[in-house]
């Protein structure tokens, strides 16, 4: 497995591994689990896998447009900003992510920086 950790970006694997309108989780040793999302339009986002409400695993929510509905109490979180939408107030950290040649990559500093 090519999970090169030495570059600026961490390679997670091919984009097809994330279902359209879905998400996959990425645990980080010593840090917080990350959720990587792929929207119906193919946009890719990453957030800490924790709802700002009561830490629900956002990777398990229903993805619609550029948002995810938390599986625990249905808060709707913007994938772009991590902000809760509507009347709810809270924000989950976003993680820099990119897709290069069909592979998903996380910004190393953003991930490792979060790992204590």
């Amino acid at each position, binding site marked *: 497995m090519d999970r090169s950790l030495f570059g600026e970006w961490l390679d997670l694997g091919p984009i097809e*591994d994330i279902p359209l*309108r879905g998400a*996959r989780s990425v645990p980080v040793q*010593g840090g917080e689990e990350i959720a990587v999302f792929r929207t119906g339009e193919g946009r890719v986002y990453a957030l800490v896998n924790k709802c700002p409400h009561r830490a*629900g695993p956002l990777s398990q929510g229903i993805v*619609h447009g550029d948002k995810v509905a938390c599986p625990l109490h249905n808060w709707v979180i913007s994938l772009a900003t991590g902000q809760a939408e509507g009347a709810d107030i809270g924000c989950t950290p976003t993680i820099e992510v990119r897709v290069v040649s069909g592979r998903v990559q996380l910004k190393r500093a953003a991930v490792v920086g979060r790992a204590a």
Partner: protein
Amino acid sequence: MSRHWTPPADPADARPRLVVIGNGMAGCRAVEELLARDPDRYRITIIGAEPHVNYNRIMLSPLLAGEKSFDEIVINDAGWYEENKIALVSGDPAVAVDRRAKRVTTRSGAAIPYDKLLLATGSDPVIIPVPGHDLPGVVAFRELADVDAMLAAAEDGGEAVVIGGGLLGLEAAHGLSRRGMRVTVVHLMPTLMERQLDEAAGWLLKSSLEARGQTILTSASTREIYGGGRVEGVRLEDGREVPARLVVMAVGIRPNAALAREAGLEVGRGVVVDDHMVTSDPDVLAVGECAEHRGQCYGLVAPIWDMCRAVADGLTTGPRPYAGSAVSTKLKVSGIDVFSAGDLAGGAGCEDIVLRDAARGVYKRLIVQGERLVGAVLYGDTEDGNWYFQLLREGADIAPLRDNIIFGRAFAEGGAADPKDAVAALPDEAEICGCNGVCKGRIIAAIAEQGAATLDDVRALTKASASCGSCTGPVEALLASTLGESYAGERAVRTMCKCTSFGHGDVRREIVAQGMKSIPEVMHKLHWATPDGCASCRPALNYYLLCAWPGDYADDEQSRFVNERLHANIQKDGTYSVVPRMWGGITSPKELRAIADVVEKYDAKMVKVTGGQRLDIFGIRKEDLPAVWADLNAAGMVSGHAYGKALRTVKTCVGSEWCRFGTQDSTGLGVRLEQMSWGSWMPHKFKMAVSGCPRNCAEATIKDFGVICVDSGYELHVGGNGGIRLRGTDLLCKVETEAEAIEYCAAFVQLYREEAHYLERTAPWIERVGIEPIRARILDPASRGALAERFRQSQRHSQHDPWAQRARGRDRHLHHHLAEVRPKENA
């Protein structure tokens, strides 16, 4: 067949030698650009693998379809090379580049020296290495030779399979069906042209192609190409076989960088170049599909033209950098208009503007970021494609156009009016509802003379806005302007969600009436205001379609709440609970032992007897679920659907078998009811109970369907709810035999499945519609029989244990992490 043509040699000619490898679109265009700047600067040689002069590759599609001849698609004929004194080596590929000696060797052994070398080797078609990929009759779609092979096969008609539903595959399919072949397109992804289109446009495209007689199989993966000595067909992963005499593989392209790699140049996905198309060797340039510029490889000609200008500038008048290109795509299938541009997978903070016009088959979606247009998908009406593309490329500020930009250039630039005023200003004859041909005057009359005060009144009286709903806005504007203050504004019927103006009932009715078979189809025909709905409407639509078309509709996993996707209940700490079915509340030592083993083996934190008479295992990690299920399956247990909008438990009491008051076999009836109905998806959860006498130990009168056994038969009770708002059941009727009890139950369940709104339990459903109409439908023998039969029909497709399927490996991705990061170990 190699052919060399060299201009007369001139020993005194000391100009630098430019050698171009690749006699295709990019190679020749770069030379044309160069000649336009300085015709005498270089001695030029072009080396081409194909035995032809330079032709227009993109016109291979019309060539295949019979819309063009080869002569018509030649860009530069033999005379062009002679006139410009370009030496042409064709049908003889370059096989090596010696950068130290500055020399190219061809397959026939010719050694050609250069001062500057330009690589323009294009791409290779990707051939997926399934068994049989090398059988005669399997072709790619890249060169003239491929088209010749396809035309030869098409002469005898018959069946063809095109693997790949992207741009190339669909153009190949179109050409072959124009040539009289019966074509099946096999596409791995759920959406055609998924790179350029979204789900909605992909669905429209699929429908149009199907209407033209092509068979389109999406989410279909090729396992092998079979045939003895020659292609006979394609076998899919799910076992289906599609016969074919010709298989076209159009699954993608890969930059052809082999020569560059062997020559030691820097190669990523393609040959890496800087903004002047110079590779890691200052005397070697690369252009076209073989080049990788700023991490990007292109597969379309427009960027290639830009690159060629940069090459020519760099080789002559002075470098002017190439900064990358935005791309747009059009499908070249006559009569089908598809346009896509920019970044549909754009960055953060994008918003969508969507227009759907089902009557005209039009779908438009613009992707806006801040005040800039970053992407566009157009289907059915692509007239404004170039305008959008221009706004996109220029990064124009679209704020002044924003409200009307989706309607196109003429409208947006013509000055926007308030839509309400615009409707008020219309003449009485103006048509408001295109579907039902209702004009403004008729609607005003319904409001002013017939007393219509709500949208639903107008729909009932005139049919306006009752079909596709796209004129809901104007109708409401007319209500508001005619009624003034007294218009309540809101529809009496609540809409499903903010994505649509329709209520649940409207949507359910239209799905059946219009025979709609997929979520994108419903969203299109009913004019959804969002591209892919929201977390409320997607699960509802998925259920309505599943209920309307059992066996036919392919469930959309991503439209399900996590519990139904993972077939377990999510807990507040992100672990899951697992509840196996215990038919009628009965268990056995074997089952109990298996449950005990699972609890220990997977370190479950708790086992609990539920309020539904079965055992709940808590604290299972999503990674362990398939293994837990496999263990439970091995002891004969299946999913209890404790997580589903589905049949949950059937509680029973001990009944006549043991109890001194028992009148009937309540336990047995409970088990039989559960066996009949398990696995069925419903609008909400559905619980049953059977009590052996009116003491009602199974609490049957607070269940969705409850049976109280009495000496003379069975009392059937419906619509009970023990939940948030306690509601006792209504007595539906009394029947004499157990068989009748089961039949009535099937009919009631089906009526609920077909008519309740998503997330409406039986109690609120019955309160909304009243028990009488329900009773009438169940008591009428013909209607009851039909309902029960539809339920049995649907159950034939749903009684598969989802746990067993997943224990065998289905949806594996749901249980595994995408990757793991261990910074400490690697840093």
